[in-house]
């Protein structure tokens, strides 16, 4: 029962990582790529590490894994916001429809 729940959470997290990487490779602009990776990586790491903590059982190691989950849940949106602010200060223009044929 514990193994089934943990495996399901890990598979969902890996699927979110894969979709984030697909967005990083295929989307046309810097802002679009940041939009894909910022959200998919946060939820993917959260689901995968929660599944591994459930599999490991109730111990100090699981407490450390839950601490990593909380830190990642705070850190990745902050880093994404900082990179986006740096791009906006340096006047990187967003992608529009008239850039489609370039």
């Amino acid at each position, binding site marked *: 029962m514990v193994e089934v729940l943990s495996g399901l959470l890990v598979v969902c997290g*890996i699927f979110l*990582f894969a979709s984030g990487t697909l967005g990083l490779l295929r989307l046309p602009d810097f802002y679009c790529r940041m939009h894909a990776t910022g959200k998919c*990586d946060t939820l*993917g790491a959260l689901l995968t*590490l929660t599944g591994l903590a459930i599999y490991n059982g109730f111990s100090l190691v699981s407490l450390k894994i839950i601490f990593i989950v909380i830190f*990642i849940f705070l850190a990745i949106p902050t880093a994404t916001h*900082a990179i986006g602010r740096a791009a906006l200060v340096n006047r990187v223009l967003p992608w529009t429809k008239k850039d489609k044929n370039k």
Partner: protein
Amino acid sequence: MKDFFLWMSLILGFLILVSLYRGVGGPGFLNRIVGINVIGTKIVVILILMGLFIQRVDMFVDISLAYAFLNFIGTLAAAKYLERKGAI
């Protein structure tokens, strides 16, 4: 269950190799920073998976925690530098 962890970490390694394309050759500094941030997040997960695979997770969880801190601080420092200098 150990084979399951091995296969999941192999899939994550393939995703790291694919996203290294954006980390090395992406146009401009900002795309490279985003690519390296994504790779660091995947490595944090892959360290816990490897620790559960070779059954030494009490050692690998500390390395993973330190890697998460370093990844966050490095990305934040690069973003602040680019915001102040305007070096694009």
